[in-house]
């Protein structure tokens, strides 16, 4: 998605609005807020937000930093959730091992689907990922261990490190918080790595990157696999939090939702997807009283976002900061 108004706050860096120190302070404040949040806000809601924020951030690695619109990311979220749920519930695995297994399965799935999908780019890529995700959906409907339409219910949370039971209100939250921070760090590291720079060049101008000798497809595939794996981590953790896994997580609406979160928060920004996840999950939670209007409202948000607001909240904020230097 080159030249589409992706705004990176590099001008802010140049202008001295963002300095390494301020950045460190910002992240520290955010991390602190995250650690204190469950005392102020309903923890299950927060955990949901964290999982979706990780999911959206992983997705953004593709859309925002590689320029690939995957319209089937729910496949990774959901498959990991199912596998983790099954491992914990039926095989009685420790929590961490179950989550790792789910993540691993999503990664392998990412390798397969990604390997096929990156043969086409742009809009075809989007449609192909959507198609494969739909295939995963149908498989999930039919495989016996997923519980089909009824879902996989009653997943035990188990104990963190085999010691701390995760049943309580706060233990689970901090477990999820740690997972989120780890996942988020991996994404942050990837974005700001030599590899991340190549990805960005691919996003900006794919033929040019190719002509510079970069085997573009391989970079895309690695990015896709990382993204799928982290989406899987989010899904696996979510299954443990909510103690069930259902078809919702593999449905294409979910894939659309993560696009919305990323778009709304600001694609190609580090914090954007998390902000978007917060907004979307909050909307779904607190507007649920409006019944079917929620779908309409989300649709309108989508349309307005695409037409007038392509930088997303974080992107627009960065732009405002730029126009009004502090």
């Amino acid at each position, binding site marked *: 998605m*080159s*030249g589409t108004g*992706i705004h*990176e706050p*590099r*001008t802010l860096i*140049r202008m001295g609005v963002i300095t390494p120190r301020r950045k460190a302070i910002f992240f520290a404040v955010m991390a602190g807020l995250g650690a204190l949040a469950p005392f102020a806000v309903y923890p299950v809601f927060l955990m949901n937000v964290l999982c979706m924020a990780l999911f959206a951030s992983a997705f953004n690695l593709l859309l925002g930093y590689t320029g690939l619109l995957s319209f089937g990311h729910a496949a990774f979220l959901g498959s990991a959730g199912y596998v983790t749920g099954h491992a914990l519930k039926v095989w009685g695995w420790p929590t961490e091992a179950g989550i790792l297994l789910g993540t691993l399965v999503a990664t392998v799935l990412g390798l397969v689907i990604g390997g096929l999908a990156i043969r086409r780019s742009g809009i075809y890529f989007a449609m192909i990922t959507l198609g494969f995700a739909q295939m995963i959906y149908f498989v999930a409907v039919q495989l016996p261990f997923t519980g089909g339409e009824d879902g996989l219910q009653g997943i035990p949370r188990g104990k963190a490190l085999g010691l701390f039971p995760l049943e309580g209100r706060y233990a689970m939250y901090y477990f999820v918080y740690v997972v989120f921070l780890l996942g988020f760090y991996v994404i942050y*590291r*990837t974005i*700001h*790595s*030599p*590899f*991340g*720079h*190549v990805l*960005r*060049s691919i996003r*900006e*101008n794919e*033929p*040019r*990157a*190719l*002509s*510079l*000798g*970069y*085997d*573009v497809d*391989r*970079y895309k595939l*690695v990015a896709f696999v*990382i993204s799928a794996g982290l989406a899987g981590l989010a899904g696996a953790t979510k299954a443990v939090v909510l103690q069930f896994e259902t078809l919702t997580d593999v449905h294409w609406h979910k894939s659309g939702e993560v696009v919305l979160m990323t778009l709304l928060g600001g694609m190609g920004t580090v914090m954007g997807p998390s902000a978007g996840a917060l907004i979307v999950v909050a909307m779904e939670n607190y507007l649920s009283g409006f019944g079917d209007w929620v779908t309409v409202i989300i649709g309108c948000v989508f349309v307005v976002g695409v037409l007038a607001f392509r930088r997303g909240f974080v992107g627009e904020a960065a732009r405002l900061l730029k126009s009004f230097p502090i």
Partner: protein
Amino acid sequence: MGDDFILITEGLRKEYMGFVAVNGVDLQVRRGSIHALIGPNGAGKTTVFNLLTRFQAPTAGRIVYKGRDITRERPADVARQGMVRSFQISAVFPNLTVRENVRVALQRKLGTSFHFWKSDASLRVLHERAEELLAAVDLEAYQDTVAVELPYGRKRALEIATTLALEPELMLLDEPTQGMGHEDVGRVVELIRRVSAGRTILMVEHNLSVVANLSHRITVLARGSVLAEGPYAEVSKDPAVLEAYIGAPE
């Protein structure tokens, strides 16, 4: 003949669903020369470029680069062997800074391009070389400018600097002066001349004065086939070439 010619094509052909875009093109590009590919619109010049750099697969024919058949190789591999192209539309990375543009090209040789776990601070070692290259194209003052904000002619210069970063043996320039003002054209021509030292350049160009000024040899394409080949003075008098140009004005 092998050593004299860095690039040879034999019977290069490309069809799309029954439409023949390139029809049996034989090209021979002499090492160290500036070779121009000209022809009216739709003559298949860009398609030839795409075939040479393997962005498209030829329907038939062979491409030999440095004595090696590269007809079946992948585009990135071709680039790594020193054949690097530029594009018809200025090909920079618009939202990266000027320095980052060049750095991306330099970065490959570090061998850390897949290292997603490493900090990008490890790329700082490249800045010195990047600055040298930018200085070579008079862009040292623009290092921190985001490429999209550069004026058009400067973008071309940036593109050339990026290409040079790969230390190519054969540069393929696709209409390097297209859409430029008079002053910019002069600067780019100078630049091309400067960087051609020790390299081979194959370019597609519409501006015939640029072609006359720069190139040692010319190949004229029309309707996918080679119409004439030789030095500019010779080719420009060829009646078939004149007809092709007059028959299909730009």
